[in-house]
């Protein structure tokens, strides 16, 4: 019941909020209320999981296992942060009263919840498709030529990806033909994994990896990311980089779960590692000399999904590290994109290197951007440090020192490239910023509360991983054939 509510409550709120008149202020309130309710329901799943965690309680095709719960919670928290932010955002920038904006956001939440909770791969696919399409109008939010181009690319590439994923699901169904168990249900697939036809399973893995990998933004299928993240409002980019990416990762993780359970881990891992390293390399190459903050964050997102894939591919500690990184990445991406959104709101232009002295002009956002640079690049004491260190350990534990050293070298390059831009934007600025708009009005409490909260969470994860999270991480990692480091 709670699961159904998680999925359909946002949609219901969206439907209820759609007819509201503009300017009533009720629409942002409805958004926040839905987000709060969603978070509360999600939290209740932590306190009291639906009876019998293993095998997952299944409401039709819905169920909650550790992996799904993790993704669901990440999305929920991120969405709540986004919803609070949206209150401030819609006051400043709300074409048509934000009707489409709020409806699409809630639709996205519904779709993302379906992805996280569905135990049926086809339904996961449907959710993925719906989530993809739900954010498309949001990319086109600015309604100019550049955002149109970005939305078009996003739609075509996502559609191709989603089509390939569908083909992958067909292959998986083919592989399952003649095997006992309900078709395409994850627990049944895992239970009967050894009986699946390996050839079709491999083909399914390949297509699902390319399909969902494109949605994650793994290189070389990442091309839509920088354009899209630059054009979408910061809030939407944050949700895409944090939540949509997590959903896509869940898709990859599910098929990896099945493949590993079938004893084909040796087949599944090299491509994951390859995509991971390639993503890091591409991010490094394009981060250098990048002049736009949001594009930069887009490439940073490519880097981080690369790390997610890498961890999954390394197995062992890597699976655990990857899952922790999922949490960290979502939170830090939300943090940074919201801050980038503040920069765009305050300066009225793109968050490019032409901006100077943000730490002084936008005291909270500027400092958060500066700190975010260190958080997103895995500097201690932020949470990403723990996950990246775990990934490096995983590489050595799996006997791949070269992978570890390649990864570290690329991370160093990425850091240099990111630091060059972010520091140029945040520091300095006295004398250069004579034309700066009055910053105070543009940095309302609603706009900084969420990034601050997300930053606090990321910082906390560097020191302290709460017990329930530990156990969920451990169970999810075990499902992926990994172990707790």
């Amino acid at each position, binding site marked *: 019941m709670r699961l159904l509510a998680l999925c359909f409550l946002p949609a219901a709120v969206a439907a209820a909020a759609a007819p509201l008149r503009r300017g009533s202020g009720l629409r942002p309130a409805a958004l926040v209320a839905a987000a709060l309710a969603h978070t509360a329901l999600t939290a209740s799943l932590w306190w009291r999981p639906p009876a019998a965690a293993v095998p997952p309680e299944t409401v039709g095709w819905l169920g909650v296992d550790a992996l799904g719960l993790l993704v669901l919670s990440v999305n929920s928290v991120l969405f709540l942060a986004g919803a609070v932010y949206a209150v401030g955002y819609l006051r400043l920038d709300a074409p048509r009263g934000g009707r489409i904006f709020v409806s699409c956001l809630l639709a996205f939440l519904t779709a993302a919840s379906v992805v996280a909770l569905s135990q049926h791969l086809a339904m996961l696919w449907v959710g993925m498709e719906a989530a993809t399409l739900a954010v498309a109008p949001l990319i086109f939010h600015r309604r100019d030529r550049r955002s149109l*181009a970005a939305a078009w*690319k996003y739609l075509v*590439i996502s559609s*191709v990806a989603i089509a*390939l994923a569908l083909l992958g699901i067909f292959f998986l169904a083919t592989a399952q033909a003649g095997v006992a168990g309900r078709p395409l249900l994850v627990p049944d697939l895992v239970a009967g994994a050894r009986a699946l*036809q*390996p*050839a079709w399973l*491999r*083909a399914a893995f*390949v297509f699902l*990896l390319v399909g969902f*990998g*494109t949605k994650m933004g793994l290189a*070389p*299928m990442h*091309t*839509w990311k*920088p*354009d899209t993240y630059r054009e979408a409002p910061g809030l939407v980019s944050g949700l895409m980089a944090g939540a949509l990416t997590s959903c896509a990762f869940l898709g990859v993780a599910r098929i990896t779960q099945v493949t590993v359970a*079938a*004893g084909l881990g040796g*087949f599944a891992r*090299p491509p994951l590692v390859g*995509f991971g390293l390639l993503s890091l390399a591409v991010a490094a*190459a*394009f981060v*250098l*000399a990048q002049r736009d903050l949001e594009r930069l964050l887009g490439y940073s997102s490519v880097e981080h999904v690369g790390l997610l894939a890498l961890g999954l591919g390394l197995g062992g*500690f890597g699976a*655990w590290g990857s899952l922790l990184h999922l949490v960290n990445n979502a939170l830090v991406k939300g943090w940074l994109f919201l801050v980038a959104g503040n920069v765009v709101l305050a300066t009225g232009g793109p968050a490019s290197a032409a901006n100077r002295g943000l730490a002084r002009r936008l005291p909270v956002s500027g400092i958060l951007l500066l700190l975010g640079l*260190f958080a997103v690049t895995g*500097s*201690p*004491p932020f949470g990403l*440090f*723990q996950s990246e*260190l*775990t990934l*490096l*350990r995983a*590489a*050595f534990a799996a006997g791949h*020192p070269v992978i*570890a050293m390649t990864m*570290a070298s690329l991370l*160093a390059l990425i*850091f*240099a490239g990111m*630091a060059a831009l972010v*520091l140029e934007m945040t520091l*300095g600025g*006295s004398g250069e910023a004579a034309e700066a708009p009055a910053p105070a009005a543009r940095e309302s409490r609603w706009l900084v509360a969420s990034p601050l909260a997300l930053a606090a969470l990321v910082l906390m994860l*560097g*020191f*302290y*991983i*709460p017990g329930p999270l530990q156990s969920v991480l451990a169970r999810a990692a075990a499902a992926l054939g990994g172990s*707790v*480091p």
Partner: protein
Amino acid sequence: MSTLGAVSAVGTASTASTASTVNAAPLQLLAAGVLLVLVAGVARAALSRRPAAGDALYRAGFAAGGLAAALAALAVLAGASPPEVRITATTPGGPWVFGLDALSAVFLLAVAVAGTASALYGVTYLRREPHPRPAGVAHLLMAVLVAAMMLVVAARAAVPFLIAWEVMALSAYFLVVFEHDRPEVRRAGLLYLAVTHAGTLALFVLFAAWAGEGRDLGFAALAARAASLPAGGALVLALALLGFGAKAGVVPLHVWLPEAHAAAPSHVSAVMSGVVIKMGIYGLLRVVVLLGAPPAWWGWLVAALGAASGVLGVLWALAQHDLKRLLAFHSVENIGIILLGIGAGSLGITYGHPAMAVLGFGGAALHTLNHALFKSLLFFGAGAVVQATGTRDLERLGGLARRMPGTAAAFLAGAAAIVGLPPLNGFVGEWLVYRSLLPGAATVAGAAGDASRLAILAVPALALIGALALACFVKVIGIVFLGHGRDDTALAGAREAPPGMLGPAFALAAACALIGLLPALVLAPALRVGALVAHRGAGVAALDLGGLSAAGPMTVFALALAAALALAWLARPLLARGPRAAAPTWGCGYPAPTPRMQYTASSFAAPLLLELRPLAGVHERRTAGAFATHAVDPVLAGLVLPAWRGLRAAADRLRPLQRGRLALYVLYIVAALLALLLYLLAAGGGATPTGGAAP
């Protein structure tokens, strides 16, 4: 603040409770020190509206915290061995362990003394800056920096170590870019940050490689794994050189160091040069402690890097006309001396000469402490000069000894110490390093084929370093403090620094003199540190450390020399006959000498630099009226910047791949798919699956 869980003391807890409380005291003192320093910083930041009260609180809190930490260090150096504290962690990598041993203690002492002195100096220094910025944040960052360093040396597990390490690096970064309105400061900051982050990543890899499949990243667990590392831990040792070497400023990883030190406010330069870079040395020594006997190549490599850093560092320093940059290059030089000691120590372990090992490591440890004292002192002096004159350019300074006698005296003491002149502390440290390189009786008695005897070849390098350092500091003092001012506009308003800045400087000068005059105080602890690091080498226990230290005669020598100098100075008036007569400087008959005719910093150093031109990175500029040299860092200008530009150019060449063409983007997806399908075929995916039954 974190990592909630049970705190339990292990180790010698089984001894009598009274003994264990005494033994635990140093760690409690350290914790108190860290907390006091942090509280002082937070209080100062919170009281930014009432700077006077904030400053007073900050001074008191910082001094108390520094004192507590110093006491903890002294207690351990005096022989206390506190049990380790373990904190159950919720993060991966096992429990967080903290402890203090003699090696930690000597670095903790440096942090406490130089860090506290710098912080106290910084209070007055920042208040007097011409364009005052909110100083509260800078003081808070300083507190964080010092507290983090205290934790770096106390950490006994990789995760807390890395956290403290990076907090240290980042707070230092923010301090370096305190004056970030100047573009060159931002550039310097970026360079520092890029290098330090790369170094941190190297440390990540180091610990990851060391831990392997292990789940516990505690140092004890790592030490237990040391024997099973492939190739004698070659990877770990190489990464240690990379990660810790970058922090320490070993050539060629030093490129960030002069830039950052020149860009930072002077008290920050003092603490960075004095102690932050020493954390790299600490890391290297800690790795040796945990890893046991390093292979021979490592010892030779470290010694060679030390010689290169020392000689090149001082040579490049000689070429500088920027006072703070010059001092920064001297840090590279002194890191070189320290590395020579570490190299000798490591060779001593490898070749089974415990005395060599103990002397080398002990010398490295002592020189670390010494350098912390006199380099901070020198930066205090430089800061006073820069603040009084508004310039760091040597060619515009001169004659400040008459305007700022206190600063000049303190700077002179620091200079004499860093050059290694007896009877000051620099001499004592270098003496130990020399002795580790020189053959002992045992070595000579050993076979002629004993390769460790080749370490003697580093002796002339050390001598060259010393002589060049002397040349350089003669230049600095002569140009800055002696003679006549070269630029009246800069010097017109030069006044003596206030007591708030002179006090910390004199305190450090007194510490330098104390160690120099009473080497007996430090030699035995230094050699104990050396013995700790060398401990896995055989035979250390049998060494007579007291005999090895020669502390007695050294002390007699130093005291006698100091007494003779003082007596001679006091007796000097006895030689005077009649009243003094004033006479101007001999101008060789030229009737109208001007200050512009004085020897300049360029011309002073030119003969040496031109003699060693290929290494020195000096460009000459001769005009009819003037001779000037311009210094470039050959590594930065010839290696690092071209490499960086090359990388950016390569990245630019990749841009067309992402030109926004949808067709191309789809093609990438197709290509990825095809590649995977090929992989599938190669993995036997098609009709002939290998992993399962084909239908």
